[in-house]
């Protein structure tokens, strides 16, 4: 985990798709930032270079920052066979959080995209399975409240 960067990560950095950040998520997980419009390019580069057999997307974590007027989206990716976890981080505007869905190239994010949409209102463009009420009860859906936003009042 402390050693060299994974070759595919190096490739992505060289291509300018992601930028290494000096911050770390404890315990020592590297963070890379990227522009939201490039997510499909990043994941397809990973698939083309690694194949489907050598990585998986563990989870997608959305966090609301009302004072910055931003929503942070983290893709936690586990690189096999060493199981190194890296964090791909991006920021979306809070009033219009839209990012391309990667469901068609990587089906394993179905749960994460549906959950992030339902709880935080991040729209994954091109994901046909997005719907409100995937988790939250119907009264919140009727009031159009995204429960994990800080000002939701839940």
């Amino acid at each position, binding site marked *: 985990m402390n050693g060299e960067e994974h070759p595919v990560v190096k490739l992505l950095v060289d291509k300018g798709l992601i930028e290494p950040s000096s911050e770390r*998520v*404890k315990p020592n997980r590297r963070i890379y930032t990227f522009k939201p419009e490039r997510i499909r390019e990043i994941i397809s580069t990973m698939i083309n270079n690694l194949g489907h057999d050598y990585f*998986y997307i563990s*989870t997608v974590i959305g966090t609301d920052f009302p004072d910055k007027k931003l929503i942070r989206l983290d893709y936690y990716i*586990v690189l096999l066979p060493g*199981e190194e976890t890296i964090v791909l981080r991006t920021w979306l505007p809070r009033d219009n959080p839209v990012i391309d869905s990667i469901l068609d190239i990587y089906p394993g994010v179905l749960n994460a995209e549906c959950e992030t949409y339902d709880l935080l209102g991040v729209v994954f463009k091109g994901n046909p399975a997005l719907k409100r009420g995937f*988790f939250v009860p119907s009264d919140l859906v009727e009031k159009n409240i995204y*429960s994990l936003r800080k000002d939701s009042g839940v």
Partner: protein
Amino acid sequence: MTISKIIEVPYALEIPVGPQHPALHEPVLLKAYADGEEVVRVDIYTGYNHRGIEKLTEKNTFYRNIFIVARVCGICNLVHANCYVRALEELLEKYPNDRARYLRVLAMELERVHSHMLINAVMAEIIGFDSLFMNIMRDREYVMKAKEVLTGNRVLSDYLMVGGVRRDVDSVKKDRLLKLIDRVLPRVKYYRRVFMEDDTLLKRMVGVGVVSKTDALRMSLVGPPARASGVKIDVRSSEKYDAYDEIPFNVVTRKEGDVWARMMVRWDEAIESLNMARYALEHLPSDGNPVPDERRLPRRFPPGEAYTRVEAPRGELTYYVMSDGKPKPYRVKIRTPSFINIINTASVYVGYTVADLPVILVSWDPCISCMERVTVIDPRTGEKRKVPVKELAGGGSRRVSQRYSL
């Protein structure tokens, strides 16, 4: 001859599976569409049990949350608490001593054994082998007893605390635990042989619900379902948290990728876990008190983020905890293994029969009931009525009237 009635049986029969069943771990609805006996499509509906725990943790203090996250799942409450507590320890940079680390592993491995025994018992029940179900559950009770001796409770134990565990073991408890492990181990080996050799079980499980290695990774499968497809992922061996760097164990993988392989991986892991539990007890270090003084734990958490992973009985469980320096966490994100294994696997059911549906579903780790309906149309009034298959077959509490009978 005039047509007096039309019975409209849709091309694809819609079969709601769930959301409630006495043996169900979590309420989930699988809407299956069947063409004859063959399943052509499955939609998964969730949200029956969303308790908003992530929001709840944002409203409670870091320490209270240890007990809240243990309630996420009853069967694997210890691994949830372990994952969250380790995230807090990473934030505080305060780590437990060796004895506490060994005791944590011991408790978690006992939990893995009883969880794997439970789901194998449920599988036997789903297949229709009720006596095997009862036998496994009887022997599982020894493991529950061992957990009670160690942690003070059979199921919800609240055993973990930042910087250690909340109870120590003495030599009397140690002997009792070793005796219980010796009692369970031959039984687990016996059940493994039953799952290896019994014709009825093999006929229902072998070749059903096959997932290839590539599909397992594309669908992000974790835990025993992934390992049964030949993906060698195990957080215990890669992260080496707690005492897993010192306790020897094997990562069990199989190549078959079917339901049977998933159940066999669980039996093999249960045997591994019992051996690990015995090793942990026999090599328990004595480097001080594993129980931290809870009054002296730091009350303030420095700002920062921690992301910890743990190998729950069902696979990789991850916790993300973010602190902004206030008494409550800014964000806690829980990603449970079943969440991936159930929701992302809708495509696996396609092509198998309706009878295989619960078998495949249980092989991920929950289980569910079935109910079937067809629509009967009266051409004179145009009235549509839904009739359960049970009624059409002549059973059930309400008989079908002569007009609608087949």
